[in-house]
């Protein structure tokens, strides 16, 4: 849950909110895996004496709101401590976990005032109900990708599947930000041949040249066309793996570098130039020949 700064009917310490003159509220989250558990180290602190006093007297608390949408997990860690460790079994979480930190009133605060209220609020007092916000800190998003990361090799960002439509004769590529891999659909007969041949390592460079390189070119062309909206792909596993592989070639997948990217060249470099190897193999030579 992203807790935004908005217009409140009473003063709240938040970035961009000027209802307090000098008060700040900072928060941060670290995490580490601990066997089958995920350990969150939750930090929060304010320099406002009035709020600190409320926390000390348990009239307010630091609240770390932890949410994992994918597993419907939502929990509030309520504490008076500036640093709190919260441990949770990993089976409760998967994917993105959002942690928002705030300060919340633990009881109705009648006639609340603070010496650091900005000029607009100076001299006023407020009735704040239990459960209401007093300060808004950071919202941290942590990606806990528990799925086996089998996408280290460039070719494994693709999934080659049969196209069961008997009337289909062409291979097509499905580049979709909602799928973990790029799907190459081959008419069923061709797919069976591919699956048989691809187990033969000697033929791999030919398979890569015929199937993977054109698909990779299409992927780069698609990314070039979508370079202003790359955020659409940011959560997607194949895009993360491709970005990592490109980094090894010193190619950044961002708006500027995609504009002038040579798709065909980059695709060949990423796959370690399979076409030259394939031609050499077909000419009866060995891959190792120079």
């Amino acid at each position, binding site marked *: 849950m992203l807790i935004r700064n908005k217009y409140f009917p009473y003063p709240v310490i938040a970035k961009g909110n000027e209802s307090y003159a000098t008060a700040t509220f900072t928060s941060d989250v670290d995490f580490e895996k601990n066997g089958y558990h995920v350990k969150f180290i939750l930090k929060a602190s304010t320099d406002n004496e009035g709020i600190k006093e409320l926390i000390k007297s348990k009239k307010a608390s630091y*609240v770390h709101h932890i949410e994992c949408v994918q597993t419907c997990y939502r*929990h509030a860690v*309520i504490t008076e401590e500036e640093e709190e460790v919260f441990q949770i079994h990993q089976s*409760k979480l998967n994917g993105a976990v959002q942690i928002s930190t705030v300060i919340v009133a633990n009881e109705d605060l009648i006639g609340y005032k603070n010496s650091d209220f900005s000029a607009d609020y100076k001299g006023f007092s407020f009735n704040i109900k239990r459960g209401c916000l007093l300060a808004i800190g950071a919202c941290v998003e942590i990606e806990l990708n528990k799925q086996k990361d089998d996408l280290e090799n460039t070719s494994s960002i693709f999934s080659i599947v049969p196209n*069961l439509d008997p009337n289909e004769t062409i291979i097509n590529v499905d580049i979709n930000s*909602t*799928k973990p*891999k790029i799907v190459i659909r081959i008419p069923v007969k061709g797919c069976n041949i591919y699956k048989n041949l691809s187990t033969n390592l000697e033929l791999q460079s030919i398979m890569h040249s015929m199937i993977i390189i054109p698909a990779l070119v299409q992927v780069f062309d698609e990314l070039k066309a979508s370079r202003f909206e790359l955020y*659409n792909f940011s959560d997607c596993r194949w895009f993360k793996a491709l970005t990592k592989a490109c980094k090894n070639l010193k190619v950044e997948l961002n708006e500027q570098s995609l504009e002038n990217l040579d798709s065909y060249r980059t695709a060949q470099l990423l796959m370690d130039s399979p076409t030259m190897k394939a031609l050499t193999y077909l000419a009866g030579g060995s891959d190792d020949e120079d």
Partner: protein
Amino acid sequence: MRIKFITEEGLLAAKSNYPTIFKEVIKKKSADLPTLMNDNSIIRDSSIEVEEFSFDMSQDRPTATDVENIRRVYNHMKGLSESQASDERIWVAFTLHQGLDYMRYRWMPENEGDKFDRFFFKNAKHGYSKRPLFRNGVARLWWIGYHTYDAKRANPYELTEFVCRDQDYINNLLDIGFASNATISKAVIGALLDAEKNGVTINRDLVRAISQYVNLLGGIYILDCLSYDEIYSKIKEKIGF
């Protein structure tokens, strides 16, 4: 029995071939999924053991079996972790294989583009969403059970029976942000149920209004810091019973 799952490759292949799967597996039943995909290992056994169960398909009106099927799925598969229960591969093995007859009974598609999201997870365009958990034909049975099962009640499925009266209740009370906190969702549904017992007529308009009201409260309070009784009281006051 061991819970089955479809391989990741198999899942991508199946999603990419929904029109053919619709025709051959769902509509005609001329082949099962592994045969159609020419891959006997596409559906595999997981390490998760559960007691064998079947789906209730006894009613003329399939929606009338929802509560009973939630009971069966959730009672037998309560041991799944939240992470496992959010894994599409488990549920697609049900919708297209073990639970295919149930899916044909409850969610028979009309054409090759229909009800994709009942057989698979239709993922959000950006980021994560819990919507697929409440749309997939079998996953929804588990997740509705998970959110509404209340062991403290004489009938632990009392809240389930309430939300299953109308798909719109499920959308507005479960497939929504605040519902991920069981204290909040149970307080809200519990208050609606008690309002009815006190003579208030419950209908879609009221349920939607209450859902909106809870969202509104979420903009003012950190609801997760409030107790069941506090949230219940706010809903009670709003409905006026």
